[in-house]
């Protein structure tokens, strides 16, 4: 019966890879697992963080929309607030080599220090496989995963789609809203929004 089980495994993995690559992770579904290297070369696996909230942030420091949130200090502020509460925050760079926003691990270390990133880690995804797995379209594109490993929010970072830092003050941060709602035991009121930003440079 070895062959039947092999066939089953092949069928299943073909099915899963196909389904995963469709980039249609629905809010409420299990967040697909992945392992990526961070800028210090350490492997980070999503499923190792079960029991904590995880925020995924797609990043490209040359994108004006990312600059809006970093140059104003908004992103770092949120990162610091949330990681202090035990949230794991991964900034994921899916820019392909040679495209805007691609940097080597070493360059990333300097860049994150300069930008004063307060994320748990910056993960490197130059193949774009994790980006496509999650259907990340823009930088920033935000995902929130609950302690059970389910995706509870995906979409924009906040309510005002613009590249203008002045708009941050009058916008509602959707990531923090989702975290607060989930922490208080409620379901997230708006589990998926339209992300805004530059295209991810796959």
């Amino acid at each position, binding site marked *: 019966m070895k*062959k*039947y089980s*092999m*066939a089953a495994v*092949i*069928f299943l*993995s*073909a*099915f899963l*890879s*196909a*389904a995963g*690559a*469709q*980039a*249609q992770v*629905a809010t409420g579904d299990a967040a697909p697992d992945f392992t990526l290297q961070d800028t210090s070369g350490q492997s980070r696996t999503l499923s190792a963080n079960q029991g904590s909230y995880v925020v995924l942030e797609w990043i490209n420091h*040359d*994108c*004006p*929309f990312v600059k809006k949130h970093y140059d104003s200090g908004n992103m770092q502020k949120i990162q610091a607030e949330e990681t202090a509460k035990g949230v794991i925050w991964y900034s994921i760079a899916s820019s392909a080599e040679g*495209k*805007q926003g691609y940097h080597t691990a070493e360059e990333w270390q300097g860049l994150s220090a300069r930008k004063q990133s307060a994320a748990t880690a910056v993960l490197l995804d130059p193949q774009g496989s994790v980006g*496509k797995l999650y*259907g990340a*379209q*823009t930088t920033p594109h935000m995902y929130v995963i609950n302690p059970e490993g389910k995706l509870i929010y995906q*979409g924009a970072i906040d309510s005002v*789609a*613009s*590249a*203008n830092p002045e708009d941050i003050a009058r916008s509602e941060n959707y990531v923090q809203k989702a975290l607060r709602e989930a922490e208080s035991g409620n379901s997230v009121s708006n589990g*998926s*929004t*339209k992300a*805004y*930003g*530059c*295209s*991810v*440079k*796959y």
Partner: protein
Amino acid sequence: MNKLGSASEIGMRVGLGLIMSAFLGATGLVMGSAPCHAEGFRGARTQVEWLSETESIQPGKPFWTALRMKMDAGWHTYWRNPGDSGIATEIRWDMPEGFKAGEIQWPAPKRIDLEPLAVYAYEGEILLLVQITPPENLVSDETLTLKARVYWLECEVNCIPGDALLSLTLPVRPENPKADPRWAQPFQLARSQLPLIASEWRVSAETGRNYFRLRITQADPKARLGRVSFFPYSDKLIHHPARQTFRASDEGYELFVRRSNLSQGEVPALEGILVSEEGWRGPGSEKVLEVSVPAPSADDSAWRPAEESSFGALWGAFFFAFAGGLLLNLMPCVFPVISLKILHIVENARASRSRRLALGWTFTLGVLVSFWILAGALLFLRAAGQEVGWGFQLQNPAVVLALALLFFVLAINLFGFFEVGLFLTKSGAAVSGRGGFGGVFLNGVLATVVATPCTAPFMGSALGFAMTRSAPEALLVFTGLGLGMASPYLILSAFPQWVQKLPKPGAWMEQLKKILGFFLLVTAFWLAWVFQIQAGSKALAGLVLSAAILFAACFFYGRIQRRAAGSAFWVLVLFFLGAACATLPLSLQKKSEETSIMSEGGWEKFSQARLDALRSAGEPVFIDFTAAWCLTCQVNKKTALNLPEIRALFRKYGVTLLKADWTSRDPEITRALAAFGRSSVPLYVLYPRGADAQAVLLPEILTPSAVARALELNLGRKEVRE
């Protein structure tokens, strides 16, 4: 895909722009610091300017202004719905008390594909019209300055945000305002590009589980309409990068648009614009129609959003896939493998029923697993945005090389130079005759690998269907193909009486083996020919060298097996095997620039640009989607397309012949095939005369009479009329 930026239109705009700037220069000199002037602003890649259509403001009377944006070549700014990324241009008003600005009137955007995303944007120069309503209580002869801050995002691939403070200074006059002669033409042009709000065409919409269906009908059943695309105002409704399927239906036309995963459940209405490439009132007329229609939920089980899926329901697809798989057994490139299968049936005819059945299922499993792996890989690659198509495994020279050598060795084996797995058979016999399963399983795998490039008509349709469906549905279709292909073997193994009718084993089997070996050899030569086209003649020389050395290794191995040579000859076998491996890199060198096979008389090399040019000129076109590794294609070429009488017919009707050679991976051809819902060759497409003519697909197995009939039917009558 809409094609708003047609060549003539761009030409017109550029020309107009030149005239305007010359005019502007002249008037600027004359007018000096005239009261009504527009202040321009140069962003990094975009020039923005705020224009007024009139030279003065009349109290209480609305007038038109426009934000003019000129983007550098290759750069774009965004429509009101930017699509997957980017951001719409925004205007924040800072006007004197009582002034009101209307909504921006957006011209139709262009869809720009940035795999795997799509955006709606403007290139070149555009005018965004805005109506301003001044208050009644204005003092005459006062000069007012209106201000607006404009925010935009300009992108090529990377993006730069722009913002500018623009102002417009106009005097207040009691009389009817005079039009500013400088801007009359641009305003007129911009107005002509705004959406129509009504047309003779009626549009209705329905919401299905995965698609929206828009139905476009007219009272006059003979009315024609060119390709239409939908651009929604909301950015959450549709899956922007998905191809929209537009086609004629019984009542008129229908358009299928894939839903976004951000739009769930009921959708109250579809709002946006429908862009017709040819215009809503015939060629050259208005291209844009605004729609706002309710989209009630509907049962979508009978919808066929993919082109070519004429059999609709899933089980229909499964059945056709099964039939296609069955037919595969008769295709030329499967034939050598059938012979391998026949051998196995003959050998096992005398075995017990349970063993036969088990072997039958093992073979089936081998076929199925290969199909699943292929399906999985295909779906994965497709989803990953790779330009692959059916038969892609033979588009890789390394795979062709390996297959050619494998078939060569198998042929030597069948000729009796050596035996395979003698020790396996011996040890297998000890384990109650299970020895054959691995071989049978691999046989199933082999059958699939060789069969895939030869696509029967059923298979082409089934694959086109599968490629446009979700992963589970596609896998079901592939399962059908595999089962169909393996079924004859399965049936024979299940019904002993039919097997008994097969001749008894004997000396003739050795002869049969050699005959079959000949077929394998022919297959190997054919693969070598394919390989030569892909990798060049130097690589072919490498292949032949490797094959010759392999032959020596096999020869000595066989001598050892028959104890005609001592075990010292193992050294020779290993030496030759090593030498064969060492020569492989010779074959895998990059192809040097050699002549392609495109120089066949009368055929032009296919390119989308060439096709578009011919189509817009209304020329009749015939496209041959072919590949060297596709035997059906070669047969069709010999028996139909290249016959003198058929060539004469093509000449008579003035048909331009385009040849799309898919022997090596060519993304442009992959895309063109996908446009017909196909991912395999052969595919024969005839475009009749006239820019609005619909493509006619010919059958995949061509006969001279079928081609002649298609030509006469689609080109003959019109010729008489002219």
